[in-house]
């Protein structure tokens, strides 16, 4: 189970790096093969290293995926963990040109941890830095607006620090600073005759109850906007630290609640990578089939809800019918329509029903009919064209700079799909296309989703036609609960069962960044383990977090009614946005 460390696996640009930073300020850290390659920079060299990694043609890490802050004060390690190197900030990077991931790490002291901001290097880091400040208390010098993001303004302390009690609560009594801050903004063009500040959400049908945008309007035109999230923050990451690895699984269902199966499978995959276990082929195949069905569900909800927001209710009924049909299959597999909790670390909670293959086939036929119906209603509909084409435009460069992934990145012309570029769970054995559009407007995002659903059906049909037999969970009983027959009748089975429930899965100490293609983009789990039964730190990279962070920039210059359409096509799911 102990993976060997590869000194510079994957870091092909190490010589270039050595030339650029000859004093060893940036060095390659040995990482196990299942983790992404890692560079460690000193705090002084960090901004230069970041710029170098973005600009040098041999590195060109142009897309910032995530910033993961870790408080190492309770990790068993050198005493420096508690003082000079208490905090760690990991920037997770991706190169769209070279299809490589990288982690850039920097250690920060316990007292007044601060860094220069990365906003100029990667604009996506704006909200990630605010999150790191809010939850971990790391300051970023030069940040345009280092305000709290997920917690409210009256919050005291930094919740993800290890010395913060998990059960501590703070009542929100603060007056609203967001609206006054935007109203006081003075950098508006001088010829503006009269502007109004409009509060849009959180209780607005188009923001689905949990998002908030304050817009400054000149007539119908948006001249400035600021978005806010955190209304659905449920402390997923803090709560994960107080639960065993298995107990986190029901929480993952509630991240992206439109496609819960993908979250659960992604989380289980991350822990399996740390454990170094292989799951049986049948479990892999079933995860793929149900994840693809979940992707269809997610896209159907996105398109249906988007059309409701822009005034076309009919589509909603047809797209939700597909979702309800898929839910029935999920319920037959795992026992719940929405909160599936089907994935387990090491496989699945139970085998699929006997008629699974036929069910999938008939379901994929009927879902194809639903997709065709939505297609008939929308794709050539000129009213929709007028509403969606040319609005909410995100260029290719902007999409990369803002950290987009998934359908929204592909709609802007970058064909990055984790399933194709970093295949997992046997996606390299199936034949499917990655649809890409070039316009980057709302219609492109809708169009890419429509085509992706068809490709998902292709994947499902191929995987189902050669669904392997055999068990659906690993037989490593340190990780999975033993079969009930053993638990009831044998001492060994009962011991494994007891250890598993009471102590949790003993994951080797280490760190992993594991990523899968969620319905909205790259869904990443950064997990740090201290070798105990509970995760030391879990950080989710929610795909829609950078999307919503960029929303306030996309809508400026457009009409406020286009902002509604843009919000819909970006597909912001508050559950994973706020965690």
């Amino acid at each position: 189970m102990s993976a060997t460390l590869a000194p510079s696996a994957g870091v092909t640009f190490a010589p270039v790096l050595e030339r650029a930073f000859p004093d060893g300020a940036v060095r390659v850290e040995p990482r196990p093969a299942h983790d992404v390659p890692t560079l460690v920079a000193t705090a002084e060299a960090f901004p230069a290293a970041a710029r170098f990694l973005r600009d040098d043609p041999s590195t060109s890490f142009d897309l910032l995926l995530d910033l993961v802050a870790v408080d190492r004060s309770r990790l068993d390690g050198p005493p420096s963990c508690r003082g000079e190197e208490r905090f760690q900030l990991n920037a997770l990077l991706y190169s769209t040109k070279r299809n490589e991931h990288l982690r850039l790490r920097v250690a920060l002291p316990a007292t007044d941890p601060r860094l220069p901001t990365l906003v100029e290097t990667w604009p996506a880091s704006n909200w990630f830095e605010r999150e790191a400040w809010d939850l971990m208390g790391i300051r970023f010098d030069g940040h345009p607006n280092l305000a709290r993001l997920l917690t409210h303004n009256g919050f005291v302390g930094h919740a993800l620090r290890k010395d913060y009690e998990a059960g501590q609560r703070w009542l929100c009594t603060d007056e609203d600073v967001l609206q006054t801050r935007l109203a006081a903004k003075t950098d508006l063009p001088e010829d503006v005759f009269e502007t109004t500040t409009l509060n849009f959400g959180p209780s607005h049908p188009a923001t689905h109850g949990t998002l908030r945008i304050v817009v400054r309007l000149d007539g119908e035109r948006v001249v400035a906007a600021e978005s806010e999230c955190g209304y659905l923050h449920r402390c997923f990451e803090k709560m994960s630290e107080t639960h065993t690895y298995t107990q986190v699984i029901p929480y993952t269902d509630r991240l992206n609640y439109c496609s819960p199966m993908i979250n659960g499978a992604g989380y289980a995959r991350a822990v399996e990578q740390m454990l170094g276990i292989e799951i049986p082929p049948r479990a892999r195949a079933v995860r793929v089939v149900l994840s693809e069905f979940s992707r269809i569900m997610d896209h159907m909800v996105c398109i249906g809800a988007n059309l409701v927001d822009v005034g076309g209710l009919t589509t909603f009924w047809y797209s939700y019918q597909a979702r309800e049909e898929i839910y029935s299959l999920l319920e037959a597999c795992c026992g719940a329509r929405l909160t599936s909790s089907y994935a387990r670390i090491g496989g699945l909670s139970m085998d699929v029903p006997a008629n699974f293959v036929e069910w999938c086939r008939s379901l994929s036929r009927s879902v194809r009919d639903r997709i065709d119906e939505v297609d008939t209603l929308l794709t050539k509909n000129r009213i929709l064209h007028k509403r969606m084409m040319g609005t909410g435009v995100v260029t290719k460069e902007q999409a990369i700079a803002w950290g987009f992934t998934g359908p929204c990145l592909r709609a802007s012309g970058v064909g990055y799909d984790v399933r194709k570029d970093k295949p997992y769970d046997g996606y390299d054995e199936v034949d499917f296309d990655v649809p890409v559009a070039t316009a980057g407007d709302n219609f492109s995002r809708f169009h890419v989703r429509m085509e992706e659903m068809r490709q998902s059906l292709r994947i499902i049909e191929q995987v189902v036609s050669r669904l392997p037999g055999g068990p659906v969970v690993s037989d490593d009983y340190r990780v999975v609960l033993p079969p009930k027959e053993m638990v009831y009748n044998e001492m060994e089975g009962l011991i494994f069962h007891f250890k598993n429930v009471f102590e949790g899965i003993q994951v080797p100490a280490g760190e992993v960044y594991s990523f899968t293609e969620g319905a909205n983009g790259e869904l990443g789990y950064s997990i740090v383990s201290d070798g105990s039964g509970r995760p030391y730190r879990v950080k989710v990279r929610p795909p829609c977090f950078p999307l919503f962070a960029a929303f306030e920039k996309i809508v400026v210059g457009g009409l406020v009614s286009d902002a509604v359409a843009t919000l819909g096509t970006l597909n912001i799911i508050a559950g994973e946005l706020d965690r």
Partner: protein
Amino acid sequence: MPGKVVTLEPPAETLAVRLYLPLLSGMALTFRKFVSNVLSRKARPTIEYPEERRAYSDRFRGRHILKTREDGTLKCVACYMCATHCPADCIHIEASEHPNLAYEKYPTVFEIDLLRCVMCGFCVDACPKDAIWMTKDYELSFFARKDAVYGIPELTEKPSDAAPDGPGYGYRPYYGESPKRKAGQFEPSGLAVLPMTLARNAAINRMPPPPPPKPPAPAPPKPA
């Protein structure tokens, strides 16, 4: 497997599109649906709840039940496994010795707070005695918070749970593929143990040092 990146072209601005003609096929679709839904009950995708109910699978995770032995006593031995495995911390158990020595231990209090419960079924997975199952009963609404805390009387399995017009059994222990059935005999010694588990076990098993001898207690002050 080869697959490619396909670039999607936006639909062509044909004359038909410019004249809004494709809207007619959309209208035809909704009209066709309307007619078929009016004429045929079966074609309707909606369900007229509560007169009509969706049929759920035998894995449905609804209200819990505590299974009983043949003599009517609870199978539960109050081992706290379900309460430990519960991610929502919604199970409260108090244990006592059973008068029947064969049963050893039983719960005097077994409460599930259904308002905290997230219906994940982990309690069923964790039970080593096949004592807790779930039913297909999903209509769980209450007039007061305290009504949502189900105790032993509410949770104990009733004949109506399995009756034809009752909710029926839902999520239950998964038997899986028994390795005994698969490979003849199960060999626990074939499994390696994680080094950190060994270290932890060693730390747990190490005897604590004997407590230092207590200094003699000072004599109580004499009442004046």
